[in-house]
């Protein structure tokens, strides 16, 4: 039957006469990578990107000055590899870094990449009218000066272990000549956003909303041509449709297989799977403030011992095994194993149901004979867990957790809500408890925003549970300020152990996503923060190519877009 599919495809190709012949010199280059994905990119402007699809595409179209290494080191410049900057030099006081632009680097419309593009990129990202999520992450960058057209000097407010990372990781460089005439507030809506011009190894060819995005190799790129000639993201909003496209061979790659997909993949000898560590962790977050009166403590979760008892009553290993199988490990805390600063042997609150019962007894929560729910002064030990109905994994987790807590005499109601409703409840802090997940960056510093005092007290902060412990903040601050890797790790270990023992959340799972791919694809390393970053090194051996690998590569670059913007 699969042959019928290809027969149809070949028939259609024959009608357009585009089945080409293989050049013997192109053994390792050429071919098409078709990726199954669940949605359109939100926007193809690097400093505005939110969705993972957009991040994948913009990372292929645009380049940074330098890229973080696979080890994810963020201290100084160790491990960073040159991109648009072919080398860099540090000032003696470390308050500035001079980047030397590769003179061969060109934009996809033929203009050379200049230092003024770098200055423009940083200045625009700092412009509050752009509404960029990057803005708060580059506050240590004061400005960029351009002594000549190929030299950009970053000036920093303060010396910091991760100032090089801040300078290069957060921003891909954008062409000033394309964007300068468009007010930042109108960037998202501009034509230029739909026809991006970058300097990366792939250039943009087309975006058909709700259908596909196609990039083609930039064969004249200053870093050399990538091995695959064409990348196509095939969009199917329904998960089942997206995975079926991969299973039936319509696409070559699927980025996040679920546990239930693995047996199906195993039935196809031509398909492979590969697991990697991602920068994600999930948790049950307790609200430490009263959802109805934020100036008061939560009647249950403000009590540290009660939170610890609930953590002890939770068999996290069983939850992870049941929900994720081999696709996740129990979370260590508000961190991930891929960070060089994470000690995988962090002391945890153990699963100990009898001890949890003892603690609850000692707190005055006694099991009622009528319904087996604990009560204190007539009030049941009961709370509501909010979960997004769209997340099958979180709903399954909630159901298992509900049963585990029931055995400790705790009544947990599960409230399934639409995702935007969950976000609103988080933001307004009107929840009892919620299952959340953070997708973090290579810098562990984001933990302060999510769990630190600043993130709790600022009305716009992301510490929705309002956990506050100055000791935790102090350890994280010390870690972030330390240049010595050993000290850095030691401070972070102390910080994590502090928050783990305070139990503002039950640390659930650290997913290790599994990608599915066709065996004809030869993959490179899947980097934890961005599995796609090495796609230009992926290849398909000549003897394993199929008709879609031999489509003629379009040589027509999109037109330059300095004008023609639209505004909302």
């Amino acid at each position, binding site marked *: *039957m699969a042959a*019928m*599919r290809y027969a*149809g*495809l070949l*028939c*259609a*190709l*024959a*009608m*357009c*006469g*585009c089945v080409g012949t293989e050049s013997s010199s192109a053994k390792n280059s050429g071919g*098409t990578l078709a990726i199954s994905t669940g*949605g359109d990119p939100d926007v193809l402007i690097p400093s505005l990107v939110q969705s993972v699809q957009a991040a994948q595409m913009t990372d292929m179209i645009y380049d940074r000055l330098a890229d973080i290494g696979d080890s994810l080191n963020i201290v100084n410049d160790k491990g960073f590899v040159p991109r648009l900057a072919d080398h860099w030099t540090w000032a003696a006081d470390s308050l500035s870094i001079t980047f030397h632009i590769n003179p061969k680097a060109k934009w996809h419309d033929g203009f050379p990449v200049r230092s003024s593009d770098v200055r423009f990129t940083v200045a625009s990202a700092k412009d509050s009218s752009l*509404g960029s*999520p990057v803005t*708060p992450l580059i506050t240590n960058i004061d400005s960029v000066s351009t002594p000549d057209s190929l030299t950009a000097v970053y000036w920093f407010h303060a010396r910091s272990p991760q100032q090089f990372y801040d300078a290069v990781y957060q921003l891909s460089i954008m062409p000033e000549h394309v964007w300068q005439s468009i007010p930042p*507030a109108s960037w998202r809506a501009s034509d230029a956003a*739909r026809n991006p011009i970058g300097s990366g190894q792939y250039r943009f060819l087309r975006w*058909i*909303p*709700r*259908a*596909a995005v196609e990039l083609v190799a930039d064969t004249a790129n200053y870093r050399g041509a990538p091995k695959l000639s064409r990348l*196509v993201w*095939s*969009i*199917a*909003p*329904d998960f*089942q*449709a997206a995975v*079926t*496209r991969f*299973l*039936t061979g*319509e*696409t070559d790659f699927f980025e996040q297989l679920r546990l239930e997909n693995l047996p199906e993949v195993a039935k196809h000898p031509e398909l492979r799977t590969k697991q990697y560590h991602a920068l994600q962790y999930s948790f049950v977050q307790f609200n430490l403030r009263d959802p109805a009166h934020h100036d008061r403590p939560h009647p249950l979760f403000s009590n540290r011992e009660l939170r610890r008892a609930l953590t002890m009553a939770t068999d996290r290993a069983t939850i992870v095994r049941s929900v994720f199988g081999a696709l996740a490990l129990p979370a260590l805390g508000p961190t991930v194993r891929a960070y060089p600063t994470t000690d995988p042997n962090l002391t945890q609150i153990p699963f100990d149901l009898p001890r949890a019962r003892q603690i609850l007894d000692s707190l005055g929560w006694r099991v009622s004979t009528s319904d087996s729910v604990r009560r204190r002064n007539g009030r049941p030990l009961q709370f509501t867990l909010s979960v997004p109905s*769209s997340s099958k994994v979180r709903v399954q987790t909630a159901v298992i957790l509900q049963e585990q807590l029931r055995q400790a005499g705790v009544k947990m109601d599960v409230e399934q809500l*639409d*995702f*935007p*409703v969950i*976000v*609103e*409840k988080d*933001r307004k802090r009107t929840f009892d408890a919620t299952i959340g997940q953070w*997708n973090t960056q290579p810098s562990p510093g*984001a933990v302060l*925003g*999510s769990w630190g005092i600043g993130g709790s007290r*600022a*009305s716009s*902060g*992301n510490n929705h549970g309002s956990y506050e412990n100055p000791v935790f903040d102090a350890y994280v601050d010390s870690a972030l300020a330390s240049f010595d890797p050993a000290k850095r790790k030691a401070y972070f270990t102390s910080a994590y152990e502090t928050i783990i023992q305070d139990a503002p959340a039950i640390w659930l799972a650290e997913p290790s996503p599994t990608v599915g791919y066709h065996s004809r694809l030869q993959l490179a390393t899947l980097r934890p923060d961005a599995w796609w970053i090495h796609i230009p090194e992926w290849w398909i051996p000549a003897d394993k190519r199929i008709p*879609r690998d031999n*489509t003629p590569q379009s040589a027509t670059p999109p037109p330059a877009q300095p004008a023609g913007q*639209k505004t*909302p």
Partner: protein
Amino acid sequence: MLRYLAQRLGQAAVIVAIVAAITFALIHLAPGDPFSDMMDNPNVNESVRQTLRAQYGFDRPLPEQFVRYVNSLAHGQLGWSISNQRPVLEVLGSALPNTLLLMGVALVGSFTLGILIALIQVARRGSIIDYTLSGISLFFFSMPDFWLAILTLLTFTYWLPVFPVGGAVDPVMHEYMGLGGRFIDRLWHLALPALTLMLLASAVVARYQRAALLDVLPADYIRTARLKGLTEREILRRHALRNALLPIISLVGLSFPALLTGAFFVEKIFAWPGMGLAVMSAIGTRDYPLVVGGVIIGSIMVTFGSLLSDLLYAWADPRLRSH
């Protein structure tokens, strides 16, 4: 007739306006906003969201937003889609032809198939064929549309892989095909979603048509036709069917809402880039202008379907024409 038409168009405009106003209020009152999703990123703080809310005017009071929206409607604009970063009219304009194609093929196919099934059932009434077809019709009639869509998808793309897995065209190869190839590719992709909708709608048509045919069979003119010596097949085709078609004409109009709703689910499951897929995605992302725009276009389609059905009915039944 013209007066009747004007009256119906006026009624349709009022219905569309009420539906649009209710949808506007409901979607804006629902928790969250178009920028809720970005708050799932620990690096994004509330100030970024507030900047964007202000840029799009979502920080203004709801009545003011409504007045501004009505004003843009009066200027022929349906607003700006936040998730697509294009005018709503442009987004729906590119999606609507796909939905109309899907609905059109499903409508024609389902009525043809439904009438054919009913004719077979009536010709063989009381037989095993009649009962079997009734059972099959009932099966599809009671099947939820999204469930049938998933079942069809898995059956014909995975277990029996003869059709592609969704989309309106092959996203990887379509642009590299010739004209003929593109046409075949389009048909090949249309087959499954259209078949799903067709199966759902034809079950309804078959049941209605069978009942209508059974209603007219005892009529005097049928008895007369039999006495004239016409065969049962000729009686069914030339006399019974023509007279039993009137209720089915009503069904054309009534099918529009059901087909449109069905198309919404089918489009999502088959990744068919039509209006349903656009609006379903917009609901999830709280893209207010696109949701309201989609509802306006949808309600226009439904009211016009109903009007069309009334006009067809009047055309087909001489007794109504005089009124």
